[in-house]
């Protein structure tokens, strides 16, 4: 097609060209994109990791600037998931902030030729010039495959460039090919059965008259629409063309064409002949390293041993090793606060900087070691290919409670922090599976609950109790969160999403040696996303919580901090919610603690030390513990009876007390309805469970 916009290619060598990089998940697309642009970017082995829009720039053969867009890894353009919708819309030039592509670079994994060429066949229908970047050529050769690249190029009708991105081989040739393909000819298309072809041309003609679609894409879009089975895939269809689509489908059915399947069959038939011509297996298929590893790693006994071992190491790193840098950050934060307290002039601004700014930044940074370790491990598991095996092993268990094999990692992430957990649910294609995972993820005991658990357990078992008992209660709290998450997921599946089909289609990529550089780069990239998304929210909320717990100032300027807090808005709020939490055995002081927890749950500890006038309660745990144990009600009985402690622990396990999570859920579900529902159900669950603990306990005769 020479129907491209009339701006001549040679005269405008300086104009910025747009090129998209498309390809299957696990095809090495992200590695190639990094090598081309030099930008740090995600590389993964777990299907669907690149969901964000990634762009970068490189230079073409004549030094012209090329704007590269990295598409999400997809198997097809038929839209059933978010990724595919994004890929389709970028390619069809539908996204307002993205200029339509002029050349498609399609990344094809040479070890997995047929399924990768399927996407090539589908992209070819767009009629855009294309370059095929052939990756994993070395691995294909090792596995005994002889590839005839010139034949492949001839069969596809576009340049095919073998690349080994990690060694920067083939990149110059690739850039040259891209430059040559500007305004070049479109590649060959798979022969489509005549009735389908006619139907697509007819519908395409109608689509081309509608605004919002470039006419050159009308044919491809028509083919996608004709074979679309689900609602989202039909989003590109103007309502008035709906009858035309129905007629086309009826005609096809009359002609004996199965519109769901026959386009796909035709593309695969074409691809299969090409692959058969250009790829020849050289040797017999000896069991590959991957197959031998899988015999161990997905074994019915050793598979579990390895799985549990990997998860245990990850947990140990997140909770034990991260403690060291977390201690440094906390020390640095208090040192900075002390220094500022001494050097800055006293007043509202100093308090804002220390109580809001430093505390907020510190509150964000203190999570960073755990998040970095977590992302490092996830990246490592993705890059090696083990993550897909983990989903394979655990899917049956997750399925039983209405979750998904791919829900496992987000839930595991949520033990560190629900925010990266919820962010990582994007790997789940099915929206309903994803939503259920998001809804239950905050029930997992995140690391911010740990200090609260520690304080409450210390109050529950003050002195003279064995540490086994304490550890047992701690473990029970973690298990309570876990079982609550599974139970709620099961309940949601049975009620809210009744009859919704959950689907697992998981590619098991061959095991690959991870590259430390790539894994570290991605870890950092994800950490930056976390800091941007969650950090700003945590900071803002910390400032707000600081403000409501510092204002209005008490009338008496010599008031103790405890009196000042009691007089503040937070204190008033604590009094205001007292009637609602009194049935759980809590007084207004605990109410203030609960309110301050909305910044981050561990703030509870700080608030408690202010309210009980304990100096530096975060470090001086025994002092805080003794103050809490000594606290008496108006009638002279202790406030923190064992049952109240337990009830409060249960409340903290189950309550949604993290505004940052609420904001992230809003962002990920794109509606306020789900985060509000989540807050409502978790609050009800927490209140109900805490109530039960207290009253059943009393009924059984405990205090």
């Amino acid at each position: 097609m020479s129907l491209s916009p009339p701006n001549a290619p040679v005269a405008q060598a300086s104009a910025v060209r747009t090129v998209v990089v498309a390809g299957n998940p696990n095809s090495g697309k992200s590695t190639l994109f990094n090598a081309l642009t030099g930008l740090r970017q995600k590389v993964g082995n777990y299907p669907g990791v690149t969901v964000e829009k990634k762009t970068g720039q490189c230079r073409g053969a004549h030094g012209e600037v090329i704007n590269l867009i990295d598409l999400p890894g997809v198997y097809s353009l038929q839209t059933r998931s978010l990724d595919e919708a994004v890929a389709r819309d970028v390619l069809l030039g539908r996204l307002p902030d993205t200029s339509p592509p002029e050349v498609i670079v399609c990344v094809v994994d040479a070890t997995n030729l047929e399924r990768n060429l399927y996407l090539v066949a589908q992209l070819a229908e767009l009629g855009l010039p294309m370059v095929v970047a052939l990756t994993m050529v070395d691995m294909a050769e090792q596995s005994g495959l002889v590839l005839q690249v010139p034949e492949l190029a001839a069969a596809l009708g576009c340049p095919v460039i073998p690349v080994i991105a990690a060694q920067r081989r083939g990149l110059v040739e690739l850039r040259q090919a891209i430059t040559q393909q500007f305004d070049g000819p479109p590649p060959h298309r798979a022969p489509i059965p005549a009735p389908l072809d006619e139907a697509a041309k007819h519908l395409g003609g109608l689509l081309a008259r509608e605004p919002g679609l470039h006419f050159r894409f009308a044919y491809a879009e028509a083919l996608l629409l004709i074979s679309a089975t689900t609602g989202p895939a039909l989003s590109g269809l103007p309502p008035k063309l709906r009858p035309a689509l129905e007629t086309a489908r009826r005609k096809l059915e009359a002609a004996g064409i199965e519109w769901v399947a026959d386009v796909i069959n035709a593309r695969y038939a074409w691809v299969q002949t090409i692959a058969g011509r250009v790829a020849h297996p050289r040797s017999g298929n000896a069991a590959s390293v991957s197959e031998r590893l899988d015999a161990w790693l997905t074994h019915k006994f050793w598979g579990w041993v390895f799985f549990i071992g990997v998860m245990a190491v990850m947990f140990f790193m997140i909770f034990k090793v991260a403690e060291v840098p977390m201690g440094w950050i906390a020390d640095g934060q208090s040192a900075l606060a002390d220094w500022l307290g001494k050097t800055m002039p006293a007043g509202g601004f100093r308090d804002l900087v220390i109580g809001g700014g430093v505390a907020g930044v510190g509150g964000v940074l203190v999570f960073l070691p755990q998040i970095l370790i977590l992302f490092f491990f996830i990246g490592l598991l993705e890059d090696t290919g083990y993550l897909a095996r983990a989903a394979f092993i655990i899917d049956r268990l997750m399925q039983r409670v209405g979750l998904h094999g791919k829900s496992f990692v987000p839930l595991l992430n949520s033990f560190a922090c629900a925010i990266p957990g919820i962010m990582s649910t994007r790997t789940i294609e099915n929206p309903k599976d994803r939503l259920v995972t998001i809804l239950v993820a905050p029930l997992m005991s995140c690391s911010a609950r740990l200090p609260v658990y520690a304080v409450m357990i210390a109050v529950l078992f003050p002195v003279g109790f064995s540490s086994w008992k304490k550890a047992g209660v701690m473990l029970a709290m973690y298990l309570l969160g876990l079982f609550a998450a599974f139970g709620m997921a099961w309940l949601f599946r049975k009620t809210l999403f009744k009859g919704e089909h959950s689907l697992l289609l998981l590619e098991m990529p061959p095991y690959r040696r991870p590259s430390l550089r790539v894994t570290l780069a991605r870890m950092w990239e994800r950490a930056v996303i976390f800091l941007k998304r969650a950090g700003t929210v945590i900071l803002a909320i910390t400032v707000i919580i600081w403000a409501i717990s510092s204002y209005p100032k008490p009338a008496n300027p010599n008031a103790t901090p405890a009196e000042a807090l009691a007089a503040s808005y937070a204190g008033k709020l604590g009094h205001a919610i007292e009637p609602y939490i009194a049935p759980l055995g809590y007084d207004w002081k605990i109410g203030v603690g609960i309110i301050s927890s909305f910044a981050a749950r561990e703030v509870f500890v700080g608030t408690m030390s202010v309210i009980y006038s304990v100096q530096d309660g975060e470090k001086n745990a025994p002092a805080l513990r003794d103050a809490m144990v000594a606290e008496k009600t108006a009638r002279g009985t202790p406030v923190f009876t064992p049952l109240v402690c337990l009830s409060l622990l249960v409340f903290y396990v189950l309550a949604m007390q993290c505004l940052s999570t609420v904001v992230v859920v809003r962002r990920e579900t794109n509606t306020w309805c789900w985060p509000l529902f989540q807050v409502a159900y978790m609050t009800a669950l927490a209140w109900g469970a805490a109530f039960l603990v207290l009253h059943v306990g009393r009924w059984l005769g405990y205090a």
Partner: protein
Amino acid sequence: MNGYTGTLKWWDMVVDLLAVETRPRPVAPVRPLAAAPAEPRLLPSAQKSGIEKLAGQPVGRKLKIVGFTLPPDIYQRLLEMGLTKGTPCTVVRYAPMGDPIELKVRGYSLSLRLAEAAGVQVSCP
């Protein structure tokens, strides 16, 4: 389950649990129950060799996909992953808890749940 002839001893079960096989077991020539005659026969090829469900097929047996009894959107997704009619495939393994199932198809490994695999009809050429 693995061709024991005698009575199962507990240590046999332990040995079976711990055994790792790096290549597929040879498949016994005995064919499991063919499809009941009441089941719809969709394709002419089904007359020669019985249509069976993909779920429950023994590991390592050479299979060919002949049809689907799945909702259109799932059916289409499987097609796009390369499970078109006439494509050869093999069950590589079942997950430790028996579900999902790992397939070798078009030179790569794909896992799907038994629920979907039960809707994939295969023949044994």
